[in-house]
């Protein structure tokens, strides 16, 4: 499977953190809705998340229709871990302070 994009990782991480509804994910990730929803659809198509409808009664009590919520599937958990590890590896390794100082003194 292709590696997840940064957007997909962000969305997937938000769901894993317990933000399960579309607009909640948008609030959490600060990504535009036109980015988050296609990402959700793609993740669902690829089997990394799964969606279901919220309990009708609970929604009804609040005077609104039921919302669709998303859960990360086991393959999604693995893909998220892989992707996070990959992107983390791209970050510059934190250098010990001493090295930096030494570099400065040789200048």
């Amino acid at each position, binding site marked *: 499977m292709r590696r997840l994009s940064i957007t997909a990782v962000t969305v997937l991480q938000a769901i894993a953190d317990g933000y399960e509804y579309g607009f909640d994910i948008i609030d959490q990730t600060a990504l535009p809705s036109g980015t988050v929803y296609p990402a959700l659809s793609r993740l669902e198509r690829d089997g990394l998340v799964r969606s279901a409808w919220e309990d009708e009664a609970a929604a009804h009590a609040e005077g*609104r229709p039921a919302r669709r919520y998303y859960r990360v599937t086991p393959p999604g958990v693995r893909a998220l871990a892989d992707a996070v590890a990959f992107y983390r590896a791209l970050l510059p390794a934190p250098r010990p302070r001493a090295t930096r100082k030494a570099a400065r003194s040789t200048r």
Partner: protein
Amino acid sequence: MKRRFCDWWLRAVSSVVPHDARSDWLREWQAEIAFTAARSSRLGHDLPAGAVWRALGALPHAVWLRCDRWRFDMLAHDVKYAVRSLWKRPGFAAVTLLTLGLGIGANAAIFGAVRAVVLRPLPFPDPDSVVTLSTTTTTRPGLPGGSSSPPDFLDWRRDTRSFTEMAASFTEASAITGDGPAEQVPNARVTGGFFDVLGVRALYGRTLQVVDDPVNAENVAVLGYSLWVRRFSGRPDIVGTLATIDGVPRRIVGVMPRGFSYPLRAEIYLPLRFGEKDIIGQRGNQYLDVIGRLKPGVAFASAQSEMRTYARRLAEQYPRTNENRTVTLFGVRDALVGSVRAAMFFLLAAVGFLLLIVCVNVANLFLTRALGRQREFAVRAALGASRARLVRALLVESLIVGGAGGAVGLVLAVWLTAIMAGLDQGLGIPLLDQTRVDGSVVAFTAGVSLLTAILFGTLPALHASSKLDLARRIREGAITVTGDPHKQRLRSTMVVVETAIAVVLLVGAGLLARSFAGLASVPLGFATDNVQTFSVSFPPPKYPNSASRSMFVDTLLERAAQLPQTESAGAIFGLPLTDLSYSIAFASLDGRKLTREDPRRPMTQVRVVSPKYFSTMSIPLRRGRVFDAGDRSGTALAVVINDTAAAEIWPNADPIGHEFSLGTPLGLQGPIAGGRVVGVVGDVRDFGPVTTTKPTAYLSFAQFPMNYVTVVLKTRGAPANVVEPARALLKDLDPDLPMFEVRSMAQLSSNVVAQSRLYLLLLALFAGAAMLLAGIGIYGVLSHTVGQRTREIGIRLALGAAPGQVVGAVVAHASVLSLIGLVAGLVAAAGTGRFIQGLLFGVKPIDTMTYLVVASGLALVSFVASWIPARRASRIDPITALRHQ
């Protein structure tokens, strides 16, 4: 309000979402909006604007879902299906591919030429800031190519501020001797800044620099790439050695990189040096091509205005030479290709029209095929395929066909561009030899193929899938007596469009044909058959004075005339049709000095000829005599003039016996040009059929031996046969003198009209193809109509209609279509006429004759194309027809 908008918006966008996912999609989005609204209302607020903004994101979501779905089954299924269904009908596929391949290939090839000539950046850095400075007349400043004089150039370079560097050059030919056979190559003499203006460095060694400019500097030369490879086997160590060029040893200091050829076709670069003599008294002598590089930040317009101001100052200072002269800047590209740019774009437009016809025809084929598959579509629709799905399936087919057609076209383009790049350079289309299929031609081809596929695919696909009346189609027994009138209308429109485009192309071709015929029928004033020419130039070290050259030419002509292949031999400086313009103003006439204030001060073209030149070229003697052996160095100077000179300079008198002087010496150590008129000869079109003859004075070669001469030989039999004997003769007389510019007068006169002929040929090809395609289109539509109306025609015949009436009805139907197409086409042709004007000679863009011929020709084609199906219709057996479904 905001809530209502959101609801409306989501419902509207939901139509994009694939059908099976639509209700869930809508429910999810509406629930999120409702949730946000409920939360806000609990806090006593309206729906926040942010929520509306979020709702807009539903569109990309819907589009994504739609595209995802498409991608999914399109690749998997449609492609396989399309390939299979094309494979099943190889005839259809082949015809379509070939038609498309021709259309696309022709477009790609012409685009390749346009790119090479007009679009591709010139091979030096920042070409936009390189300009040519042309000396032009104040009345017609727009003509590029006006040469400038050395003093003007030196003044410009010294006094103007807009340029980082300015340089001058002119082209001639150099003889290279030693190390192999003597060879004449085109050279460029350039001043030190030349290569800096262009920003080009040497491949090996160095370019010519300012240090090479002084008259007493070392004799050096820089080799062009092709000469270096050809004559010096591409050895880098050639740099620093000596080569004999024009009889002088010169040190080779550099080799230019591959692809650098400016001025066009120059193969060797020599320093251009100005001596005292060039600067004093040479202000009227314009032979330099000047280029300059604009300083960074200096706009073209401001450089232009500086040069104009400066030119006015020079005109005041030197009115005798610079009056009415100004300086005009041109981009280097404009200066090179200015004259053919319009023609190239015209051809591109024409070939684009051809492609449009191809599209219409292929669309017609696709439509016919799609209509034949109605039953199949109906079944697929009944099994659950949506209309969009069917349209997509058809579009995939057309994309595959378009792509394959593009591939065929590309192969064709590679072949065609190779032909174009190899066309004779006598054609005079600069840079055409650089034509090749490069990345952008491939990209162009791909783009055109895609566009074509969409053009010919969309309409039939939408059309064939419209109004899928399932039950009726499956029964297929539907009693359509005359076919679906709506679909018939689309096909008829296609025929009209095709006819109209064909008319436009045919009118263009017709106009070009008329002007070509006009050009070819202009009498040039000399015999072009059985005349061979070649040139010889005399390096000053070996032929330092008049006597040595004159003697050599006498011997050469005498012995050439004795060759068995030759009837007579002559020589001229300034052969017709070679674009040599050598124009000098009269300094005195019959002893009376003419000043520049004299409005009637004549100008004349100057040519220097041997006595037998006129008879060899069959130029008739009108009055007096031509030169003879008595007109030698030391005797009175004699002049022969042409009819135009006689009529313009001595309008009401016999010119014989009059005397004039041109005031400047001619040739190395030659006397002041001029003399007593001894004869009048017929006019010659020196500059081709388009330009009118100018007054011309012929001087005697024996009195003015130039350092360069063209030998003309009237031959018995084919002119080419004399070339080798003449070469042997020349070698015998002086092995160091190369023979160059070897060509027959027939070649030269054919070169003059070669461009016109090429344009005509191409346009005639396009127009012919267009007419053929239009004919096929009409035929296709009518055959189909007749097929659809079989039952109706059968009923008519059964009820007693005569076969003639049936034929008449079908032909009448076609005639109406072609008539509409014809009229539309003629109107369009009249509208586009002005674009072709620049290519025409002796014929107006709206030429009744051409229009009539085109109209009747196309009417005939459409008649024939409709006659065949009409005949078939009239032979329908009523019984069979009535049984026809």
